Structures are given as structure tokens and as C-alpha cells.
């Protein structure tokens, strides 16, 4: 069996599918991250709202993606945006707890030292708190990225599932080889992205004892 058979041209090419898959998955992670940072910092600043936030994130995470796609179609149409929005929320749900733990996990004496050196709010956040939270944030990003690369395929129900289209086609044309190809491509993309994130993290955190030694 040919692992990468010719795919029917109406589905696109390998290149266009890879591009679609990555665009939707990575943009949703990016938007999720952009929204997660302020939300997480809010939770660090006001610890009382954190339990409510966690509950809300759990609810979001439990919403079936198909339902969300269908609900969004009337407003955003059969577009990539319709896929990106729910996935961005999933990323958000995965990232907020990681960022909160990361910032909270900063050693007390480091925090004290920062205050004693005369750091003020925003500057301390940028110069001390966030850089130190990079390892847990990266862990969250890895989970979100791999998850989203897989989830994008569900978008095939509204016709924008990238490699997910291969699964639909496999069923319609009775070509199980297309399904296998879809799985292989998605897993490969996920692994490559994860590896890139691991490398990025090593480059970003040469100071991290567990990683450099």
C-alpha cells in the first residue's frame, strides 16, 4: 500500500493541505495565547477569581467542537475562522492554568529580590515574572499545538478540515488508504511542531537547570 497515494484533486494537494492545517492550528494557538496571558495575570493578581476561571475553562474545554462549528456558521460562514475560534478557546483553556502556575511558581526569594531592587509592576512582569514562567508556558503551548493540529480535521464537517477532508473522502469513496494517509500526515505535523517548540524552549531558557544539564 502506498502511504502517500494521489489524492483526488478537488481535495487539494499535500502542500495546500499542510498549509491549511498549520494555518488553522497555529493561528488558534496564537490567539489563545494572546488572550490567555492577560487572563492568567488577572488570576494571579486576584486569586479569588481563579477557581471561577478554572470552572469556566473546564466548561469551554468540554464543549464539543462540532457543535461550536455549526453554531458559528451563521455568523462566520464556512471559513477557516469558524474553525479557528473554537480552537482558540481550547488553547486558552489549556494555557491559562499553565501561565498561572508558572508565575505563581516563581521562588519567593526571587520575587522579593525583584521588589527590593526597585522593580515596578509592568516592568517586573516583563523582566522577571514572564521569562521565569516560560517553561510552564511552553509546556502549555505544546499541549495546545498538538491538540489543535489534530482537532482541525473536525472542520471537515463544514468543509474546511484540511487533512480531515481525507477522512470524509475515505468514507465516501471507500478508500481506507486516504484515512491512513490523513492520520500519518497529521501525526507527522504534530510531531514536527512539538519538536520545534522543544527546540525553541531550549533556546529561550539556557538558564533552566533541568534542560541544560
Amino acid at each position, binding site marked *: 500500500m502506498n502511504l502517500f497515494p494521489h489524492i483526488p484533486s478537488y481535495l487539494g494537494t499535500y502542500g495546500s493541505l499542510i498549509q491549511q492545517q498549520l494555518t488553522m492550528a497555529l493561528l488558534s494557538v496564537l490567539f489563545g495565547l494572546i488572550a490567555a496571558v492577560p487572563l492568567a495575570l488577572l488570576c494571579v493578581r486576584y486569586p479569588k477569581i481563579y477557581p471561577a476561571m478554572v470552572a469556566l475553562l473546564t466548561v469551554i474545554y468540554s464543549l464539543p467542537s462540532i457543535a461550536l462549528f455549526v453554531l458559528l456558521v451563521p455568523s462566520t460562514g464556512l471559513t477557516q475562522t469558524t474553525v479557528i475560534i473554537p480552537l482558540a478557546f481550547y488553547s486558552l483553556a489549556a494555557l491559562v492554568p499553565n501561565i498561572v502556575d508558572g508565575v505563581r511558581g516563581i521562588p519567593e*526569594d526571587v520575587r522579593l*529580590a525583584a521588589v*527590593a*531592587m526597585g522593580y515596578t509592576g509592568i516592568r517586573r512582569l516583563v523582566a*522577571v515574572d514572564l*521569562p521565569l514562567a516560560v517553561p510552564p508556558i511552553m509546556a502549555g503551548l505544546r499541549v495546545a499545538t498538538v491538540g489543535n493540529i489534530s482537532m482541525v480535521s473536525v472542520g471537515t464537517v463544514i468543509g474546511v478540515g484540511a487533512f480531515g477532508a481525507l477522512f470524509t473522502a475515505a468514507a465516501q469513496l471507500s478508500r481506507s488508504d486516504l484515512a491512513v494517509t490523513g492520520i500519518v500526515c497529521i501525526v507527522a505535523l504534530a510531531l514536527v511542531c512539538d519538536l520545534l517548540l522543544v527546540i525553541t524552549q531550549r533556546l529561550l531558557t539556557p*538558564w533552566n537547570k533541568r534542560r541544560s544539564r
Partner: protein
Amino acid sequence: MISFQQVGKTYPDGTVAVAATDLTADSGRITVLVGPSGSGKTTLLRMVNRMIEPTSGSILIDGVDVRSKPAPELRRGIGYVIQNAGLFPHRTVLANVMTVPRLLGWSKEKARERAMELLLTVGLEADHAKRYPFQLSGGQQQRVGVARALAADPPVLLMDEPFSAVDPVVRKDLQTELLRIQSELEKTILFVTHDIDEAILLGDRVAVLNTGGTLEQFDTPSELLAHPKNEFVEGFLGVDRGVRRLSFFSSGAVPLRPEPVVAVDAPPQEVLARKGTQPWLLVVDAETKPLGWLPAQQVPADGDLSRVPAADLVSYGHAFTVEAESLRAALDSAVLSPSSRAVGVDADGRVVGVASVEELVPAIRAAQDGSSPENGR
């Protein structure tokens, strides 16, 4: 000069951490706050840079209330060193030391130059600069902590148990280093410790605090050892305060006798003459450096000391340097020597003379009776 005026701190839960306290830390001196855990030392210290706000009273630095400028600005002008150094793990040693100068808006070059200079001041090497904190030992991290606190050349330095977490040998080094740096820089240092020996070693003045944040006594270490004001202070000082106080008196007053000292190549008749009058002879080499003690009965009958095997000379323990070292060192030298005699040497290690324990007593007596020591440390 830091003055605490009726400064008190009661935490919201009702804990009185510091009872209304008056205290003055002199400029260019080390003032130590010592006391058991929970006696309000950290609270007192942190009120100076406003990491904690007092609930009563005020704190002035050189006559200016610390509340007269915004806290972050105040803090950039005050060095702060904590127990585990609290270095920023994600920054190199150099970048850590550059922190405050950069916050103050110095250029990168100027901050870097200053940081490099300080690394050397605190006894680190230039190639430590590029390392990350996790690549340093605890003692080295603490040195970086001190360099970071000194980076912007603040007149005031706050140190909260900076050496408590390192092993005793490294602690000793760091203490000596701090005294050396202080003798050059003359900062106004407020130093917190729970270790009374450290307080006595480092402090120009020592404030003894009790639980509930009450100041029991504020004096020079020597006064503290000589005249503890109450049972608490006496108990806190420990049992051997009399002997420890001797470390504040110079050994210059020790009467040293040259008679028992003989050169290994001395003429036999001289050796035999000494043998008759001295129970112990201290044999020295051609440069007058001590070789060891020889009991009089073991002096060869012909008086030729060069025939005595080195192994027959009894170790002199350690010698004390006259003037430079204290009466305590002299007493220790005598106690450790099998002959019960202390060996006094000059700065080059040449024997000046010896004194028995009994001969030390008048000098010790004079020190205990005299009210002020002649020698700072």
C-alpha cells in the same frame, strides 16, 4: 545614618512584630540586629526600604523620611541582600549585577563595566560573568548577591541573614570578605542574623532583639559581652562571653619573655645555661621562626641542639601575631601548647617571645577591668 524613631509594626492579624523601637545605625558602620527567630528582625529591616510599612513611628535615612519618595525609587538607592541570594535564575551573573544600574537608566556599557568591577571586588572571576546562577555554588551565588546590592553604589546596605544558608567554612570566608569590602567602601550596613557569634564578629554595634520585637540592648560587641543588661541578653550571648570578649583586646599588652627562646645553632654553653633556668626551651631556626618546644631534661648533655631529631621537638600548636591578633588568640596559643606557653611572633612569623598562661593573666585581668578595648576587632 538610619534612625528608627518609635518604629512599631503590628500585622493585621494582631501579631506585634516590632514594639515601638528607637535605634540609630551609624553611617559607614555595620549595625547588627540579632535575636531569636520571630523577634522582628526581618520586619525591622524591610521597613527601611518600605517592603513593609510601619504601623507607627518613622524611619529616617540621613535625616530624610523614607516615605518622602516613591518606594521603588527609594529601593533603587538601597542595597538588599537576602539569605539564598535570590538571584534572577534567568539572567547571567553579569546581568544580575547590572539590574539596579539598568533600572536607574545607566547605559548598558557603563552598567556592564561597573558590574565587572564589582564581581572582582566580591572575589569572583571575570569568567563567572557569563554563567547562570544554577552554575554557581551557594557561596558564589551569595557573592553575586552582594555585588548586585552594591552595583549602584548605594550608601545603605540591608542584609537579611545573608550567610546563614552556606556551610561554616564558606560562611567564614564570606564574613571576612564582607569586613574587607566594608573597610574599603564604608557603607551604612544593617545586618540581620540569628547567630550571636556572627553579630559579634561583624557588628560595630549590635542590637539584641527579643520575641515581641523588643530591643533588649544596643551596644558595641565588647560592651555587650562585658555588661549584658539582663538575663535574656546574657543567655543569648552564651557561656564563654568572658573569653570571647578577649578578642576585642590587642595582644600587645602580653609580657613576652625572650629567655626560653634559643636558636637551633646556639653555642652549647648558652643552651646549657638556659637549660638550668627554663623548664621548656623554644627552639627556633636561623631566621628565628619557631621549630618546637623542647623540655629542659631532653636537652643533650653537650648542649648541641642541632643533634636533636625534629621529631623530638614538641609542636607549639599555633603562634599568635603580636598586636595584630587579640588576647584571645594569645590565650588560645598558650592553652593549645603542651608547654602551656603562648608563642608570640611578629608579622613575618619571627618569634618575639613566649608567655605562660600565668603570665597572660594580668593582661587578661586588665582587659576585663578596663572599660573600653584598645582594639576594634
